[in-house]
């Protein structure tokens, strides 16, 4: 199929793109990497009046470290993140996750900003943003604002972005000394969307994990933090504590049935991933739980 007819405009700057969105009045959409938007248009799952192409705005690309903060331009492509030494050094969770984002052809085109603005519940990157405590920098007609990741992802394909706003950058606190990252996901077929995945970061201290952030994806209608389970795991590690945390996932996640997997299977996988995460963060032997 082909997309329904739409107008196309190429923005030279963020300001110009915002103006175009304002004029588009809700019928305009941004073209970043196009890896979700264009299939949706071609399958006629959506239609629009104006496509605002921001791929030419060089200022939106790039990765740099300022103080203790990693700043990533929204139009930075997955492939660039995957090979970036800055990402590997300061946000290893992101580097681990990007390797699971679809296939190389998609990673060559897809952008981090496009991915986050799309807010697919099975996508890896929103979960990483939550686990890393990211700040999202947004520009609109009345200037810039900053939104915490926890306030950005509102639901199924829903974000805090207004129709005339652009996500221009992502700011991540650089990995602190002693922090460790864990990432794993399960898909029936390589490269497919996960039916359960876990992004986590925390600071192992002896046999406890401090400042643990556990974020599951592919389980519910958006990436889901698990504060109850994380709190339990701040206690000294023991099989009982792990079991308690695993039990808490049911309330934290409230997984759903769908044709990909039953809620019970999702919960089983989530609990298995938690055990693996705890073992890895604590540097324990890779015994299965």
């Amino acid at each position: 199929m082909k997309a329904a007819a739409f107008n196309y405009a190429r923005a030279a700057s963020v300001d110009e793109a915002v103006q175009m969105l304002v004029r588009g009045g809700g019928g305009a959409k941004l073209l970043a990497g196009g890896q979700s938007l264009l299939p949706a248009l071609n399958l006629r799952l959506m239609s629009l009046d104006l496509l605002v192409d921001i791929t030419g705005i060089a200022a939106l690309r790039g990765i740099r470290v300022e103080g203790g903060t990693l700043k990533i331009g929204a139009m930075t492509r997955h492939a660039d993140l995957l090979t970036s030494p800055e990402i590997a050094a300061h946000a290893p969770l992101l580097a681990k996750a990007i390797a699971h984002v679809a296939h190389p052809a998609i990673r060559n085109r897809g952008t981090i900003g496009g991915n986050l603005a799309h807010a697919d519940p099975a996508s890896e990157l929103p979960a990483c943003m939550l686990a890393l405590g990211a700040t999202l920098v947004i520009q609109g007609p009345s200037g810039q604002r900053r939104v915490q990741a926890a306030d950005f992802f509102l639901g199924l394909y829903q974000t805090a972005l207004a129709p005339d706003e652009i996500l221009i950058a992502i700011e991540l606190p650089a990995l602190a000394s002693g922090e460790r990252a864990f990432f794993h996901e399960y898909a029936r077929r390589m490269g497919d969307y996960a039916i359960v995945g876990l992004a986590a970061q925390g600071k192992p201290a002896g046999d406890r994990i401090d400042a643990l952030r556990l974020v599951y994806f592919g389980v519910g209608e958006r990436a889901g933090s698990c504060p109850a389970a994380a709190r339990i795991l701040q206690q000294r590690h023991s099989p009982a504590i792990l079991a308690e945390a695993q039990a808490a996932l049911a309330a934290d996640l409230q997984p759903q049935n769908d044709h990909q997997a039953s809620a019970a299977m999702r919960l089983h996988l989530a609990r298995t991933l938690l055990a693996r995460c705890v073992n890895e963060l604590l540097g324990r032997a890779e015994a299965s739980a």
Partner: protein
Amino acid sequence: MTMQAIGKPHSRVDGRAKVTGGARYAAEFNQPDQLYAVVVGSTVGLGRILRIDAGAVAQMPGVRAVISHLNAPRLAYQPHKGGTDPANGERLHVLQDDQVRFYGQPVAVIVADSLDHAERAAAALAVSYAGETPVVDPLDAKVQPVAPQAGRAGADRSRGDADAAFAAAPVTVEASFDMARENHTPMEPHATIAAWSGDRLTLWSKSQFVVNEQAEIAAIFGMPAANVQVICPFVGGGFGTSLRTWPHVTLAAIAARQVGRPVKLVLTRRQMFHTTGHRPRTLQRVALGATTDGRLTSLIHEGSGETSRYEQFVEALTSTSGFMYSCPNVRTRYRLLPMDTGTPTFMRGPGEASGMYAVESAIDELSYKLGIDPVELRRRNEPAIDEAEKLPFSSRSLMQCYALGAERFGWASRDPRPRAMRDGRLLIGWGVASASYPCFFSPASARVRLLADGSAEVEAASSDMGPGTYTSMTQVAAETLSLPLDKVRFSLGRSDFPATPSHGGSQTMSSVGSAVRAACLAVQAELAKRAVADRRSQLFGASIDSVEWREGRLSRKGDAAAGPSYSELVTGAGGSPVEAGASAARDAAIAKQYSMHAFGAVFVEVSVDPDLGLVRLRRAVGAYGAGRIVNPKLATSQCIGGMVGGLGMALMERTALDPRDGRPVNAHMGDYLVPVNLDVPHLEAHFVEEQDPHVNPLGVKGLGEVALVGMAPAIANAVFHATGKRVRELPIRIENLLDV
């Protein structure tokens, strides 16, 4: 003969055309003034159409016709049974009544001046039904099994007393297996462009069997077959789904006649799950009895497969069970489960792939019970003859396949204990299984023309869905005529070319190849006849028996001097092309003397993540005894393709039906999982040397099916070796392995 075109790893002669877009597929034969048709499928799984609100849709932009049973022509539907049609039952008569027999059955077709307009109108067409709940689950108590009334399966056979022997056996295995429905999911969708010129119809249509499509459409419309021309030079993957002529072909022809213009009809991916056949879900039971030293004393194989209410689709589910192993007591039983579904059809390795999954899994179970290596167990039960038919094999290299495969795989270093092999956290399993598929050889014809420039044109109806028919037939002609490959042009895919059997059943190389060879010999004979009768020829007056062809030149026997070439002979005879046709068929006496099958042994390694139940194939080695290999490069490619198909069957492919209405819920490539590149590890295909003078003049056995057959049981057996858990359903999914 110095050419040796046969046996060389030539690249595809049509490769450049395929990768540059020069190869034209059915939907690319756009015609002047063409309109577009879109099928509207039933949204209930059983029932009756109450009302079709065509009036509103007919007024929509660009709509030229809304055709349903209310206004479609009553078609002749004369009796026609093609070689790929079920012998029992009657095909779906499309738009002829108000009955809905299965979900997605075509109930209307919209014709419009653009695809967009046709799709929009199709989506808007309101159809109301008196719906009933269909029966779509083989385990439903309402399903009544029936014995197939005809077919090649030889369904219920018995020798000795298998049940008594099983009861008395010191070691037994008894197990039941459930294999999911699969759809073929080729890259190219089904597509037909239909154009009428008076009472003549041309169909550019995706088909693995153009001469049957011609005959069938002629029968449906009650017209002479000579008035129908079917053209299909390229097929973008078939796997069996384009062997039959499905309702959309008839719909395209109806639509084109109704609007008086050419009409293009392409099925959507979703519609490819409705009316174009599928591998039936099968339920099977295998019971084996053996002595403690591993000699089979009883083999019982019972199976049933789904079919539709209006046709009996019969496949070879139990047909290998009589000859794979030496066993005095064997009983097979095969039943059909008629349900409210479209008729299943042949899918790569039809019957053998499903049946051998069950039997080869059970043999593996037996090997653990006996504590005998599974390869050794098969060696101990290797038969000297086909004990079912009581005939010698024309050739059987199964044990050589095992020897070659085991060596290439490194089987000797396997730790036989389940869960004994590991790679870090991952459990590693090695599994093995046998494969077999019959060597068919159906009557086929071909035509060869020698041109004044010394080149040859070769034609046969046939098809090339990917194995490399263009290339292999070019090789056969080049070899037979002693011409370089680039002096031979082979054409296929037209119903007015000499008739050939279906491009399925692994019989194209044997049947069409033998016909091409025969036609090459016939044109040489024709040319020789003319040369000895031509006063201007240096061979004038020689008796036809005293001349011979040597490296493309006609010489007197015993005369070392090179005689005239094709070019000189054709030019000398006036320059007009010299043509001859010929047919080839199996000698009926040979078929009564030998049991003819290809064999293979498949070795695989899987890893299983014990926490997640995640199975990955890590490597596979297939060794095949398939007679003469015409082109090792293409044969290897074909085998790897078959192994990937078997990987899909083992771990991914599964058409899930909504129990309420029979709707295939995962009818798209996002949710109907076929392996992607990342799922496919290093695969190796090897061929044992095998010379079989009986199967056909070329000594080829066919590869397409046997390459898929052993893969799924080998993987299932490897999963057991890795985990110690025997999963007896396919595909093996995470749900099956959560407790390992």
